[in-house]
């Protein structure tokens, strides 16, 4: 299996799906001529032409709306946000149109659209450009939310998202574009939405982590193994629909849970997972579910403060020890 970066894995997924289905097209700021602000769309304009790889003006609400309309008309748009921080401008189209249309039209319209782009923290791009806002989108019925943590997952999940008949929010972690991993170069390789992946098996505590925090959790698990504490690491991969069954099964085995995330704690995905666990597996818990979230402050610009605002390996180790009463 070739070892490629997350960026190239996403590029492969886009290329394969554009080639597979003529109704797929890509639109966003700088996606064509400039080949993407993060080079995810490199080479696509050349290969598929300006009719299918479209540079948009800097009008998130506008081109998101164009996408929803195109989807209603039968196309399968991929709308790239330069970052998900800018998707905030497009939320009316995403939430009021894309998420609701199938329901409000009594099923007459499907909206097979993907909104994708980088999210979460990057390196010193400060408060307005470092936000993990998956909980906003996961909140609304009608949207699916996907967050890959490996190049292979990125490719398999993006292909499934493009083929899905409902709107999918596909959030790539900005810091992870350069992450390398083995990726199948099979055109038919897909990963179903709504299925969690057990990234590491263990018996003493479960770390539920997504996106940026998956590698952190795996590193923490490795360190803890040296101390005789065996951690299971579960990546839900799809935030909505959430594969809670896999998480619950793990909780029943380990009795102790950490939810790790770079997003803010309040009203976050971690809070939701924690609530689900308490409702479904209360009798199996040996300690309260512990969240390790990003700091509850706007992301600081200063490098040292930025580092402190994102959960790291020592924080996860401390949290696991807390729930394992070590």
């Amino acid at each position: 299996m070739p070892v490629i970066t997350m960026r190239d894995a996403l590029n492969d997924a886009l290329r394969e799906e554009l080639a597979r289905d003529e109704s797929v097209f890509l639109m966003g700021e700088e996606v064509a001529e400039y080949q993407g602000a993060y080079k995810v769309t490199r080479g696509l304009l050349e290969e598929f032409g300006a009719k299918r790889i479209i540079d948009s003006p800097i009008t998130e609400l506008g081109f998101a709306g164009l996408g929803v309309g195109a989807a209603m008309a039968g196309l399968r748009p991929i709308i790239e946000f330069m970052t998900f921080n800018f998707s905030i401008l497009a939320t009316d189209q995403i939430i009021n149109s894309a998420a609701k249309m199938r329901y409000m039209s009594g099923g007459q319209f499907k909206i097979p659209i993907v909104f994708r782009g980088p999210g979460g923290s990057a390196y010193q791009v400060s408060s307005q450009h470092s936000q993990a806002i998956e909980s906003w989108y996961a909140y609304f019925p009608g949207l699916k939310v996907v967050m890959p943590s490996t190049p292979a997952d990125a490719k398999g999940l993006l292909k499934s998202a493009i083929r899905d008949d409902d709107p999918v929010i596909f959030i790539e972690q900005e810091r992870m574009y350069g992450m390398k991993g083995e990726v199948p170069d099979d055109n038919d390789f897909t990963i179903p939405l709504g299925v969690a992946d057990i990234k590491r098996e263990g018996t003493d505590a479960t770390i539920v982590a997504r996106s940026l925090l998956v590698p952190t959790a795996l590193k923490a698990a490795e360190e803890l193994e040296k101390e005789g504490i065996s951690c299971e690491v579960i990546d839900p991969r799809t935030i909505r629909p959430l594969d809670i069954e896999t998480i619950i099964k793990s909780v029943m085995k380990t009795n102790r849970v950490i939810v790790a995330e770079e997003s803010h704690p309040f009203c976050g995905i971690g809070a939701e997972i924690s609530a689900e666990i308490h409702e479904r597996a209360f009798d199996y818990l040996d300690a309260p579910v512990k969240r390790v979230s990003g700091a509850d402050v706007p992301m600081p610009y200063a490098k040292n403060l930025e580092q402190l605002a994102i959960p790291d390996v020592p924080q996860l180790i401390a949290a696991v020890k807390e729930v394992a009463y070590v």
Partner: protein
Amino acid sequence: MATQVVMPKLSPTMEEGQVARWLKKEGDKVSMGEPLAEIDTDKATMEMQALSAGVLRKVLIHEGESAPLGQPIAIIGEPDEDISELLKTATAAAPAKEAAPTPAKPPESDKAPAIEKPTAEPAPAPTPEPSTDGRRPAGGRMLVSPIAARMAAEAGVDLNSVQGSGPAGRIIKRDVEEAMKAPKPAAGTGAKLRPLAMPKAQPGAVYGPSAYRDEPMSEMRRTIARRLVTSLGPIPHFFLTTEIEMDRAADMRQQINTLYPDAKVSINDVIIKVAAVALIQHPQVNASFQDKTVRYYEHADIGVAVATENGLITPVIRAADVKSLIDIASEVRELASRARERKLKPEEYMGATFSISNLGMFGIDEFTAVINPPEAAILAIGAMVEKPVARNGEIEIHKTMRVTMSCDHRVVDGAVGAQFLQTFKQILENPLYLFLGS
């Protein structure tokens, strides 16, 4: 029939209403559909109509007070109807509230004498669990993680006996697992053996006949003695028999003899020692009937019945309660051999406090022995045999032995003898106890 008037929903978004004005007073007649009160909702002041006819018997929410939707605010009924039940449910439905922002008007004069004064019953204060042991946190509540609680319930572990190692003493999974590993107390209703200080024999000490104290006989004890003698000779005997599992005692004896081949400890020596220890725990049996007193002995001087050509003689092991098994074994051997040679001095075969007679070597399963006065009891030991024993629905092979104790009923009552025998059996079945004394 009396009915409760509840706070009605007078606007689509209303969640609670404030009584602006009662249009009827308690005791006023009310007909159905008649305006009853004015209610301030979140939107406007609305008139509320009576939904039943009768007399406004009780106003529960006074002017200026608020109530959530559905809460009883008044009771309408017949003038002389008993509404105490309705009142009770109405006050129960009312959420315990802080004093209303607007002070309530005092209730208007009660015209219906049957009505009790409305008392805002404070919600019963949660009774804190009594802190029965120091392990509980100050709040008095036992902290247990959910999985620990469930595991304990399933395994029958008493959480009161588990020490929590989590924060604030929370009992966690690990603690219950530890508790589950600990051996369960042996099943059965037997009284628990308590650890007993077992003094050791002083090196070189020579023990004469045991010291004793005489206690005046109670009137009751005297009467019991008098009546029983008339029934059954001078010493009214009764008999208690029990079967004892001897596997552990036999093992122990064998192990001791492996370690100290010279010790030559016999099962009978073990029985002597166990009986002596049990006697110290049950001084009422280590006693004798005197004319006006009951004599209680400090030590257990055990008479051991030895058959000789000329008949039975019982050399005495003095203070067997404080002597080691090995000492007892050698003493018994020495005394028995001299007994056979008729070389025992009188003080060596007189004045025991309790006797043991063993016919097990003759294959006797069980028998009754005759008490050697003035002792209060004698233990008759049958043969140790292997036999099938039903245990938890399975048949197991165990070494068993039947013993019968003859008791002097003037001193030892049935229950007292039984308790002694129970202790004797427990120790003999778990002879490690002999080595646990402090």
